[in-house]
């Protein structure tokens, strides 16, 4: 068992609460940063894609995992970020690094404007509202030809700094993605250790007492939505460079659901979960491709195998590990931390009976 003695308030506020964190995250950073040395180009390209998904997932995690507002339409904001990036680079002579925050801000502003009416809804209504929104936005992407190129799609100017052109499938773009991911992680962690982040969690757990504690609930939800969409838009902008060519059906409902899958599998309510989830979601198709060689033909070449397996994984997680991969990791850690007194019941969920509050 480890005891951590706290000697100042600062210690609780730090991102890394004690030196163990420096070690574990330091090693993780070294492993990730040296990846191009021991992984092939293909794996590196896959990892950079996972990172842009992770950024988008972090955005969604803030909204779903920390504010408790379900969105089934985040692919739309992912798409807005991507198209905004492509459009900015095609009309302005600016570096892609400058365009990215602008694209993110544009997405955030659109998110903010939509949030003001949208967030009058709650719960399931909000989920459906965002779903409807994403379907409508997809239709706009398809039909607003002057900006999005419609069905023909839109090419994205290659990412370059001072003449150096980044190759989206190689190590140099990998580092761009990594840097952005780390930046977003720090931003999210900052938010969560500040009053607004705490207000978000408060709104998630009990709106009524959040209000009595002085939290402006409506404003907190709208802020969370705007920040969430901005971050997802940033992920989209990054993804645009990865894709190099945007088509409207790349940002449909399936992607929204993939994002949700990411954060559920990774572990709701933890930033680490969003990143883990993105990794898993990127790895599954690869794993399926590999597995296909070993499966009987009838199953391997069945249409819609991939979404089916996605679904199966989700079902298994919801039924057996609702806290996701990160939740499982925490349990393992606790097991070793307090060995040998770990009890199975530590994480046991309370049974809740439904007593409806609907009035008739």
């Amino acid at each position: 068992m480890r005891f951590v003695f706290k000697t100042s308030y600062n210690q609780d506020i730090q991102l890394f609460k004690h030196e163990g964190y420096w070690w574990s995250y330091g090693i993780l950073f070294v492993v990730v940063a040296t990846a191009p040395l021991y992984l092939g180009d293909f794996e590196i390209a896959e990892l950079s894609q996972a990172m842009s998904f992770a950024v988008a997932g972090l955005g969604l995690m803030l909204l779903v995992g920390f504010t408790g507002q379900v969105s089934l339409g985040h692919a739309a904001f992912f798409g807005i970020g991507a198209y905004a990036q492509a459009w900015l680079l095609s009309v302005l002579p600016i570096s892609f690094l400058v365009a990215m925050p602008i694209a993110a801000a544009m997405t955030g502003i659109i998110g903010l404007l939509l949030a003001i009416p949208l967030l009058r809804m709650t719960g399931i209504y909000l989920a459906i509202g965002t779903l409807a929104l994403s379907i409508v936005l997809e239709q706009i992407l398809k039909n607003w030809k002057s900006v999005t190129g419609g069905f023909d799609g839109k090419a994205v100017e290659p990412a370059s700094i001072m003449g150096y052109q980044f190759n989206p499938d190689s190590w140099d773009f990998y580092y761009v993605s990594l840097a952005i991911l780390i930046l977003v992680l720090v931003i999210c962690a900052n938010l969560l250790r500040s009053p607004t982040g705490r207000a978000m969690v408060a709104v998630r757990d009990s709106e009524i007492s959040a209000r009595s504690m002085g939290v402006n609930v409506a404003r907190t939800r709208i802020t969370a939505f705007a920040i969430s969409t901005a971050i997802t838009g940033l992920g989209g902008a990054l993804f645009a460079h990865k894709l190099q060519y945007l088509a409207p059906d790349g940002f449909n409902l399936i992607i929204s659901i993939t994002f949700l899958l990411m954060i559920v599998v990774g572990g709701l309510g933890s930033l680490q979960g969003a990143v883990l989830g993105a990794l898993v979601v990127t790895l599954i198709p690869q794993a399926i491709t590999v597995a296909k060689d070993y499966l009987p033909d009838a199953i391997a070449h069945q249409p819609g195998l991939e979404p089916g397996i996605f679904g199966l994984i989700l079902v298994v997680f919801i039924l057996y590990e609702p806290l996701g991969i990160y939740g499982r990791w925490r349990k393992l850690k606790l097991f070793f931390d307090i060995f040998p007194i770990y009890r199975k019941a530590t994480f046991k969920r309370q049974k809740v009976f439904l007593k409806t509050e609907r009035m008739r």
Partner: protein
Amino acid sequence: MTAILSADSLTIRFGGLAAVDKVSFEVQEREVYTIVGPNGAGKTTILNMISRINHPSEGRICFLGNDITEMPAYRIAGIGIARTFQNIELFEHASVLHNLLVGRHCKSRTNVLQELAFLPSVRKAEMVHREKIEEVMDFLDLQPYRDQYIANLPYGVRKIVELGRALCTEPKLLLLDEPASGLNVEETENVAFWIDDIKNDLGITILMVEHDMSLVSEVSDRVLAMNDGKMIAEGTSAEVQSDPEVLRAYLGA
């Protein structure tokens, strides 16, 4: 002594039913004022109207001489009214520390952009919040539970955490909705001590709704008895308990 809170012919109707009917009272500074009455008498509804969760159909509420009848609910904590809930409304999937920090929300002045970058000003403000919270934790003996999640705490401790969260807003007036419900005798006695301390040491006025008459007579300066949304008696605890109207309300007949 001056009135810190005054309610003037408060009325609220749900459908046709007047849950609270023309209730007027004044709470003096640094007193413990208790509302008692059978279930459904409208006690909690009065607290809900003061903390602006329910909107009165008629009547006015004044706090420190200002009319707060139209104020949005989230501003109530900022002007100095904090509350606890009958059935505990804590943030279940967060630690005790986190819960108390939310209590400091009304005191935070930093904006989102500063927070995203976690500027030194944010850090400084955070330190101040933490210091205040440690005071409250020491006051209520919450240190052992500091980093525990609410979902893992026993009922009695949750009640105390909720009280602590209300104290973290540094209120002038504290609304307690059945602070002793669900507690055992020993825990109820602790609550009585704390209420005394909150009144005498922290100088906070308390408006309380409670069923446990022993607690009520121990801590209350004045008591208001209600039945069916109407006031039936006001006075010291002993006076109210011997009031014939009150006896009738409780015992029938």
